[in-house]
């Protein structure tokens, strides 16, 4: 796994904002490992979880440049060791009669879930840490992966009694 950093970015929920953020990364030659966008409990805002390749650009520059985008309201950095990261994967694995039980067994071990069954294949949903998803896809590969989709990770800081873990870079000001 390359060195990465997670930014959760609160942005105004307006057309073109994703394009502004994505455009900034490409223009400044910063690499995105993954990007997930979701609504928040306040419909004026959306949240982006951006996993940044920390080797291509100093994180400080990424954060400062992002902050210059006017629709960006707040950026929170989550260092990998200090965050809870989760990701969801859907994978269609070949599972004819002779191998089906093995695939089912793996699914059970990984606490994954079979969400669709066809004549010669099954669709399996795996949720968890990105490493776990990697491991699962490696293990089912010999059976034959027909299609695979991952959501990109989302993250929140680990809870702690020390209040300094969350560093709000730009606070919301009225």
């Amino acid at each position: 796994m390359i060195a990465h950093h997670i930014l959760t970015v609160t942005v105004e929920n307006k057309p073109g904002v994703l394009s502004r953020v994505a455009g900034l990364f490409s223009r400044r030659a910063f690499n995105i490992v993954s990007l997930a966008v979701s609504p928040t409990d306040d419909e004026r805002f959306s949240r982006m979880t951006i996993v940044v390749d920390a080797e291509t650009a100093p994180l400080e520059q990424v954060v400062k440049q992002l902050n210059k985008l006017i629709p960006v309201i707040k950026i929170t950095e989550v260092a990998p060791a200090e965050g809870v990261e989760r990701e969801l994967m859907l994978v269609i694995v070949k599972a004819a009669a002779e191998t089906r039980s093995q695939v089912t067994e793996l699914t059970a071990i990984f606490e994954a879930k079979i969400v669709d069954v066809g004549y010669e294949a099954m669709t399996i949903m795996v949720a968890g840490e990105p490493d776990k998803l990697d491991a699962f896809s490696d293990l089912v590969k010999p059976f034959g992966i027909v299609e695979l989709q991952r959501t990109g990770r989302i993250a929140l800081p680990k809870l702690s009694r020390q209040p300094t873990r969350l560093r709000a870079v730009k606070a919301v000001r009225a």
Partner: protein
Amino acid sequence: MKLTGAQALIKSLEMEQVEVMFGLPGGAILPVYDPLIDSSIRHILVRHEQGAGHMASGYAWATGRPGVAMVTSGPAATNIVTPLCDAYMDSVPVVVVTGQVAYSVIGTDAFQEADTVGITMPITKHNWLISDAQDIPRIVREAFHVATTGRPGPVLVDLPKDVANTPMDWYWPEKVDLPGYKPNVKGHPRQIKDAARLIMEAQRPVIYAGGGIVKSGASRALRELAELTGVPVVTTLMGRGAIPDEHPLCLGMPGMHGNYTAVTSMQKSDLLITLGARFDDRVTGKVATFAPDAKIIHVDIDPAELGKVRRPDVPIVGDVRAVIEELNKAVKAEQQKTGAASDISAWIAQIREWQGDFPLKYTQDDGGPLKPQFVIEKLRENTPDDCILASGVGQHQMWASQLWKFKHPNTWINSGGLGTMGYAVPAAIGAKVGRPDRMVWAIDGDGCFQMTAQELVTASAERIPVKIAILNNAYLGMVRQWQELFYEERYSEVYLSPDLPDYVKWAEAMGCVGMRVDTADDVVTTIEKANEIDDRPVVIDFRTDWREKVYPMVPAGASNDDIILGPEFGEGGR
């Protein structure tokens, strides 16, 4: 009060105290050009949309107020992309309004449709596509606010034709509400104190003054800082005029074509007091070897500039004028507390020695070919102190910046970051529109002039008496210089011809006075003649020596230690 979107747009511009705009109408922006007839705003009809953008930029530089341009959709919008990018690189407050095809047909590849907001996203500070006529006053207000506050920059407002025709209820927003945009103006007091202490301790300090000084109106504060501490000042290409060149502490321009003293004093300094500058590669040369012993104080309104290229020891986010004023107080307090600052007289003596040994040098031989530097010096001697000078990009720009003695801020207008050839003519026109009381000259190259000269038609038609000095060396001179020095004199596609076009006839065809100068003897009399003409533009074709190169020079990617002084200093130039 019911207005159409178009009327609301014009009224909003009036509310923003826009007096002049530069533009060219077309299909999608037609509705807005109708209420313009009844508006107090003066509209300057350009001949190419690029001209409108650069004029707005020149206007902004000369007046300190935002420049406004308005053009139609599609090709007009793409024609103004270059000025937007130029203004973005040089942090110039420019507001561009573009027409757009009807909102209802966006995305259908309609006639003259272009994704203007998408195209200009990376080269504007922010841009807006208006989908509802009711939003127009709010968005115009936001656009001017964003363009002129914080680190200034260009913005674009894209107005679809059907939105312009839709009725709305007029209002004017009292305040701007942008939760994600709150520039920090005031510097951190503790950081300012730390900066003052570093200044007191430094043995070889240099003030590195950039375009931010001019933009924030910090010239007086800068001068006070320099005089208070005795620290010499280099003024970057964008910061020329930030402190008068005749001031004993002004060392002139650093960088790739900076003078020896400015370049070397930065290189040898132990403290760079960086004020509204951004460690551009043309200033630093090879970053790894740039000013290796220097601690860095870096003041900038844009936090992203701090640490982008060189990590500062004392970073200060804030308006450079506000910060320098506080810094001056802090320095005074330090001086009272600890007595005098460290003695930097040896450093100043060293600087004076460099100035004596390695001045800017050229030789104008009697009866010899006309030297471009000679033209610039004579032009300066024969124009008022507050004359505004615009330039294009290339050799002539470097000579102008090196040799022009600037006495006031906001008198130097050029394209620094983007290096846009053809900038001079429209920028000079914009400046003259903004400051009709001032004499405005442009020093241009023959290559640059051919890119945007048609705007002199605009200047003639609108009675904007700018004066253009073409340093005609019949080459794309800077490119030729690089081919001579770094490509073994293999000249590839750089020859332009001195006579094609005939600049005098061309000038006359555009309604200007055209003159030609071939010899040094005629320079001053011709300039005097040009200065007397105040009812139309003047173009002088100065036939200059094509062999002349810009020195000193730090080759691209080289260390500033390896500065080449040029043939005037004998073999090797050192």
